């Protein structure tokens, strides 16, 4: 009872815990009805969701643009890959913590000059970071495995989980679902942390720094520290996402984290909704299932997927979607409700001023 009462009063951390917990369990439940391939896609989407959470925090709440998140992902991925490659027997949780810390450190290094840069200059610097990561990974061959990358063992599905499955494809289905469930669980935990962070004192300080740095300094917020913190948190989430991605795919190569991935992440975040928690989840879902969507549209319109038009369909659809989102729902799909509300209010105000009160 005390717990339930606490939900209504002040301890919203508990409320968040309940909400996120229920949603995670719901998604885990969904994974039982999804076909195995969709589960594999969902696992990738969960990893990307974690990265977008960090990116949304950095861009949406602290107002600092970053094109370097594929770089932070790569740092986490390689930290996980190098560790797991040599110490395959350590518990998985250790690999994830290591990758998160490695991401945070890389974020700190990038953040130090970032406090002096704004807008396009900051974007340029983070862009350079993510462009530099790929050649670094290609060149230190003895550590990173060079162009071929590093290979890990696939996740092993515990035997109790296999009992849920039967039939000739039991193992394949179980492996796919176990990976997805693990990824969803980690995404759920990350989501909970970020939800708390969004609504914490630090989160509010972050928004004030974004909106008016003079006012923020006047109320005693340390600008440099707050901006640095934003990068460190975003990079640690990207590091964790990258590590999860590596564990899911059982491999890490330089090609996995191209510069274009940063742009993709940015696009997904904008589509989902900048600075919203649910937007990150929507972005992850779009990432996971965009291939299916594009294939579906190709088959609906009868476009040959290997033709010039077909092979550029992905860019066309998401380019158009991005433009539409920016015009009609600046806060992304997560903000559609608010956008509709605002339109309705505006219409009502217009009607009222015409004297046509309903």
């Amino acid at each position, binding site marked *: 009872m005390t717990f339930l009462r606490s939900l*209504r009063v*002040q*301890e*919203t*951390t508990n409320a*968040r815990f309940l909400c996120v917990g229920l*949603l995670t369990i719901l*998604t885990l439940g*969904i994974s039982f009805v*999804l*076909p*195995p*391939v*969709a589960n594999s896609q*969902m696992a*990738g989407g969960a990893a*990307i969701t974690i990265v977008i959470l960090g990116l949304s925090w950095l861009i949406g709440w602290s107002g600092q643009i970053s094109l370097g998140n594929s770089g932070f992902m790569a740092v986490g991925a390689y930290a996980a890959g190098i560790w797991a490659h040599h110490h395959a027997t350590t518990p998985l949780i250790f690999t994830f913590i290591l990758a998160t810390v490695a991401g945070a450190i890389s974020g700190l290094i990038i953040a130090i000059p970032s406090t002096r840069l704004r807008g396009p200059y900051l974007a340029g610097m983070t862009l350079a970071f993510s462009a530099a990561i790929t050649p670094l990974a*290609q060149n230190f061959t003895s550590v990173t495995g*060079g*162009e*071929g*990358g590093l*290979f890990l*063992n*696939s996740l092993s599905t515990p035997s109790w989980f296999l009992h849920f499955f039967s*039939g*000739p*494809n039991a*193992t*394949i*289905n179980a492996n796919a679902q176990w990976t997805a469930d693990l990824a969803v669980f980690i995404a759920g935990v990350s989501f909970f*942390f970020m939800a*708390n962070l969004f609504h*914490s004192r630090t989160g509010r300080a972050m928004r004030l720094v974004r909106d008016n740095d003079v006012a923020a300094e006047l109320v005693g917020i340390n600008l440099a520290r707050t901006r640095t913190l934003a990068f460190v948190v975003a990079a640690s989430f990207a590091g964790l996402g990258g590590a999860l991605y590596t564990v899911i*795919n*059982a*491999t890490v*190569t330089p*090609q*996995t984290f*191209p510069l*274009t991935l940063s742009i993709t992440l940015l696009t997904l975040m904008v589509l989902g909704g900048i600075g919203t928690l*649910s937007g990150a*989840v*929507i972005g992850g*879902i779009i990432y*996971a*299932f*965009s*291939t*299916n*969507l594009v*294939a579906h549209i190709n088959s609906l319109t009868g476009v040959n*997927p*290997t033709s*010039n038009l077909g*092979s550029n369909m*992905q860019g066309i659809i998401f380019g158009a979607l991005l433009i539409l989102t920016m015009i009609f729902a600046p806060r992304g799909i*997560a903000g559609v*409700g608010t956008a509709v509300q605002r339109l309705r209010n505006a219409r009502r105000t217009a009607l009222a001023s015409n004297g046509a009160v309903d």
Partner: protein
Amino acid sequence: MPAALLWRQMVPWIKLFLAVHKGEEIQMIKGRLTRTVTLLAASALTLGFAATGVGISTAGAATATPGVTATSITIGATVPLSGIAVSYAEVSAAANATFNFINKHGGVNGRKIKYIRLDDCYNLAAYGLGCTAGASTTTLSQTQVLVAQDHVFATVGSLGTAAQDSVLSYMKTNGVPQLFVNSGSSDWSQPSTYPNLFGFQASYQVEGKVFAQYIKTHYKGETVGFIGQNDDFGAGGYAGLVNGGINIASANHLSYNAADPVLGSFSDIGTDVSTLQSDNVKVVVLDSIPGITGAILDTAHQDGYSPKWIISSVGADPISVNSPYEANAITFDSLPATNDKTNPWIPWLRSIILADKTDFPKFTANSPMDGNMLYGAAFAVAFAETLKAEGKTVTRAGFVKTLESTKLATLSITPLQYSKSNHQGLLGGVIANIAPNGSAAPIYFNEPSHVVYTTGNSKNTPIKTLPYVVSPIPAWLK
């Protein structure tokens, strides 16, 4: 106490992450509800997407062996059907044509072979180089579709070194044989670690060593340069040259980046060619895919640079390279020349393709055949023969055992004989040259001497010769 000091430093950070600032937040219940609803909607969307995009599999799961029913066997491959390595699309198309021919003649032991090919854009989909696959598509994700949705018996002829390396672990975990990987990496011959993994062509190291011997014989004392793809392909070929006793100055050991999103591979090529030209290099070995080979030859011609080109079999097929400056270049080949009048497999394959032009709609009686077609048909025949040899009962373990103990009659000019220790496949090939074609781009290889060279990957294995073999076409394939 430093530890206490450290702890005091950490506490605010831990608090930050747990966000346990007591009693400071009163969040609107409405806001929470909105978020919950959005998330529920998002979850519903997951289901919706999955339902529209992912069809429910119809592949037979009736028997104990996945992909095998009484009347069919389903196999698959991930191959580049678009993007940077699209010129290889013909390989799997020719394999498909061969399977269709076999199916029309009753299949193998009463089973029709269904060959599912999925585009993985050479595992570079994220670069979007005119690539069909979406941003989240990788060789692994397409392989998951083959294994977990289509329930293939095995993958057959999946292409690319880096691409296929990325699914080794997945294939092993799920117990799916990975057969006839289309790449010359020596990664495919690790029978103790990957018992169900089989390569097909001779390794890049072997090819490099044979090239080294050729250079030492015909271009003694000349400076040698090298341009390779910056992965196992280039590394293996270079190791072969060095193990074969060729010295290449480090300034002339050059590479191009197949996956360079910022500047593209072509900026590498320009620099590489002008370096070799200014160092007055007389013999250049290329370990490049066909599109890049063509770009290198064209760039060199524009710069007025014409060394002796020695090109890996992977990137030498004249029709794919499509550059007039390839004439008289040297290459390595384990398959017959496509204009070989004496080899019965050439007209056999031509008649198959002409009989059912689904896979090659533009192919006519006068069209030249290319090495890609022979390659695809060669592993398709090898698969069908093993399947036939295994008999009516098909299991994965039985197939692997049969493959390790059967001498296969296929298109190759050197015997194809796997064993418990050899999962590489073909072990050697001939030195061939590219036949000139007037002022137009060449379309044929020549194999002037029928001497098949073979050797091991290591430095100390000597180069030996094997008999040149033309396997007769088995009666059931005629």
